[in-house]
């Protein structure tokens, strides 16, 4: 037995417990979800692609999918851009970096229920924000029951995840050797050139992880939306998880399974495309 084979075996043994958990709690249920997506909810008769057709023509699903897509398209670039900017500022700030890092991470430690309470205090009809508007002789708004609800949701997502992404970006930035920057400086590179030709290429590996994690975290914003506005919130914050949650309550397991598989397919396609573009980028860099 070669040393490499031994190492491989040891590696698998280390991975085995968590892999078993993942298999039992995620992979096998996922296979079952795929199976159910072709069956009727009650009785279990074969439905072919009927469930998929129903889901794709369902107004509620289409609205939720559109909202979720809009949310991701707005939030993801905003979060990534803002967190990278702050991380770059903190990269040069050695003295107070740790304090800022902790401050940015604080929202992550606040439970969703407390965040919801804060939302209610702030955005309620009789809330602080409307109080402030009245103080300046402006008319208050029903923030959570108008189009503004979407903005509140975006704000909440950014506020909660910003610190986390800053820390991740910082870990990538601090991993870049100082000597590279010094050499660039000697060669006369300015801040912009340094960013595009040294910083960005060097944080590419960590950027992939951050994008994926931020993308996955964007699905968690449902908790706050649900706790504040319930099953049927203002339509701009009616997300895919609302549909899934309500389908579950109404026993629409067939539609729920088909919807989940569709969602997974979209996510998988997104991850694959991202991975491919990253791989291509790596090859270009190596060339």
């Amino acid at each position, binding site marked *: 037995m070669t040393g490499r084979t031994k190492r491989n075996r040891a590696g698998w043994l280390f991975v085995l417990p968590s892999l078993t958990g993942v298999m039992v709690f995620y*992979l096998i249920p996922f296979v079952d979800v795929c199976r159910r997506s072709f069956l009727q909810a009650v009785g279990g008769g074969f439905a072919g692609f009927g469930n998929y057709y129903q889901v794709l023509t369902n107004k509620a699903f289409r609205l939720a999918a559109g909202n979720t897509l809009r949310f991701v398209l707005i939030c993801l670039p905003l979060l990534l851009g803002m967190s990278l900017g702050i991380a770059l500022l903190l990269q040069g700030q050695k003295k107070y970096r740790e304090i800022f890092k902790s401050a940015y991470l604080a929202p992550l430690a606040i439970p969703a229920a407390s965040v919801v309470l804060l939302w209610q205090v702030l955005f309620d009809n009789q809330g602080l924000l409307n109080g402030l508007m009245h103080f300046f002789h402006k008319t208050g708004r029903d923030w959570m029951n108008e189009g503004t609800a979407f903005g509140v949701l975006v704000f909440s997502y950014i506020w909660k995840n910003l610190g986390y992404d800053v820390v991740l970006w910082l870990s990538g930035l601090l991993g870049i050797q100082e000597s590279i920057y010094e050499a660039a400086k000697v060669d006369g590179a300015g801040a912009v050139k340094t960013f595009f030709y040294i910083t960005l290429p060097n944080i590419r590996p960590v950027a992939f992880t951050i994008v994926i994690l931020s993308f996955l975290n964007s699905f968690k914003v449902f908790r706050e939306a649900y706790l504040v506005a319930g099953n049927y919130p203002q339509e701009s914050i009616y997300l895919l998880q609302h549909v899934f949650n309500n389908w579950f*309550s109404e026993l629409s397991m067939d539609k729920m399974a088909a919807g989940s598989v569709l969602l997974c397919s979209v996510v998988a396609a997104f991850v694959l495309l991202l991975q491919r573009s990253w791989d291509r980028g790596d090859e270009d860099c190596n060339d």
Partner: protein
Amino acid sequence: MKITKWFCLLLVMALITAAAAGCSKGSKGKDTASPGAQADGLKSEGAGGKGKGRFLENEIALPDRAGRILAFGKLLDGTLAAVAEDKGDKSYYVLKSSDQGKGWKEVPVQGIKGQRISYAAVSPDGDAALIHYAKGCRADISIVGAKGKAETVTLRLPDKVEENQVRQAAYDKKGNLFAMDMEGAVLKADWKEGAFKEVFDTEGLQINYFGIAGDVMLAVHDKGIRLFDTEKGNTLDSEALLDDLIKEDKGLASNDMDFGAPMLFAEGTDSGGIVLVNKNGIFHYNRGGSVIEQLADASLLSLGGGNIVFQNLAVLDKDNIFIVVNDSGEFKLFQYSYDSKAASAPDKEITVYALDESSLLRKAVTLFQKEHPDIYVKLEFGLTGDDSVTLEDALSVLSTNILAGKGPDVLILDGMPAESYIEKGILADISDVIDEVDQKEGVLPGIKEGSRKDGKIYAFPARFLLSVIEGDKDTVKSGESLEGMAKRITQLKKGSNGGVIPQDKGTMTLLRDLYYADSASWMTEGNSIDEKALTDYLSCAKQIYDVDANSKEQDYLNKTGDGTVDGIKAGTLNETDLIEGSSKMAFGTLPDFWSLQNMISSWQLTNADYGLLNREVHSYIPYLSAGVTESGNKETAKEFVKLLLGKKTGDSITNGFPVNKTAFRLQCEEAVDSRLVKDDSSIMFSNEDGKDFSFNTVNLTKGQVGQFTAFAESLKKPAMDNRSILNIVLEQGDKYLLGEQNLGDTVDAILKKVNLYLAENS
């Protein structure tokens, strides 16, 4: 490398699926004492070994003329004794039986003829204490000896308030008499000093009622049960398990009734043993013990019936327990005898699920158990009110159970998305059951037709409520439509300085009342809400609300949730303001014959009339809509539904009008020759200024019964009873009525949310 990448991708997909699919919630467990273990002395279920042995119920016949049972107990020699009121002339008897109730010796009480007895107690040596209704801070007590001769003694009561009276009385095993007064103080009779005295230190706790087990007093308060030594008066060690009973079910601590209690206590056959009975069953507890052991499950006995009020409990010996109950006004004595050969639990089981507690459903379960002793009916309620479970939580748990193959056999669909369940094939066609009941006993034809969907019946209401309007003839006539009613109310306001609509019609109650009267006509053929109908409804609600918007009391509905209070479907029609003159009309849901009779009786003061509200729609509010699940035990479940719809369950004069025609007719006959009238029932109340109002309950005339029957037979459409939709309408409508949102935005918000809800299931 490629395999690893694909594997990682699969993992990501699985994670997303898990996140998207949501979480299921476990079903709610219930803490009960464990049956099967054997108590010292008393036998528990299954104590006979190999799943054998249980207490069997037997109703003991009381003498024909015995009406109200005021007291009951076991004497030192094992004789059973009771104090009963004569059904006819209201005289009193002491009843004694030395053969476990097979025969009764009646001893008429002499010397108190014509006097009203409020409470009574039987002492261990056979004397009876009869407490008279008395004014002032005193108790007139007639002590009745073995020959029935009464000697009256007067005892003073604490005079903390102007009018203090006794509201409960009982003897301990040493013959000391105890009572509780109107202020919740537990008192001991001091015959020498001629007073009831406060000898127990309750530390300011509000005692709701008490029980005595031998020489231990159990005083029940909102947070638990305090124990006292009846002889010495000192406080005994607290019993955490007894306190837990109250903490887990606050209803066991409340005692807002004149007679009886939600829980009774008696001394067990062993030292320190206490036997207690409540709606969950008969239990045994040893003071200082670690478990409250269930001797008998109430759901297998008459004790689980929803209208049962416990009166007295006596433990004769280790195999025999006696309980007196008030079952819908009828006093009954049950004997529970241990049979070591009976199976400890029935072999078969069906589950009945409802969102809300229902006393009528409990009664149906009890009747079913009696008819089918081999079938155990498990009754589950999704929203108990004791926890923070929301409608969505309850429906999710129900969905999880159905999907896991552990769903109920019978679904009571009140407030549930019945349409969605029908569409998904969860409910079975029960046309055969309805047809059978219809052929045998009849059902209201409009309601039968209104329940059909594609020629089949998947859900059928056992009861219904009606939306009515009460006032002068012009007002009643205006109630043909909501628009007419709103106009009439505005017109009445112009000519009046006082209130026009009842004060308890806050935003939520008003919206809900009008919703029930109008929503039957809202759905379009395209499975969406008719915008014009919704706009008209909201406009009328606003117009009506604004008339007296400044004089609203706290909203009734905000306090009572969905309208079901303590298992009773309460109506919202309240004519007190009309009687007082503080409103010109009354409207709301009329829940039952009892309320109909009260409403008509009140016309002695108001000279009013009534009619269906929004008569154009001919809608009714379905109650106890039963459906049978396809995946359950269909045949047994159908049997249960048959019983629920049958005349036996339908004979209750409260809790909805029966859809069963025979039960409906019997109740009409009862209303013409009413028990309430025979009992000289009257209604009294005072307004805020202290002015008293009272009227006697009167029989309905045949014309009035005929008119009501015509109303019932004209019903065609059920009001929308999906609580998700109702909640959306109430939530948004409330903002509009309070002026926080304009009509257009409100209609828009409701339509978007409701149509989204409907679209999810399309």
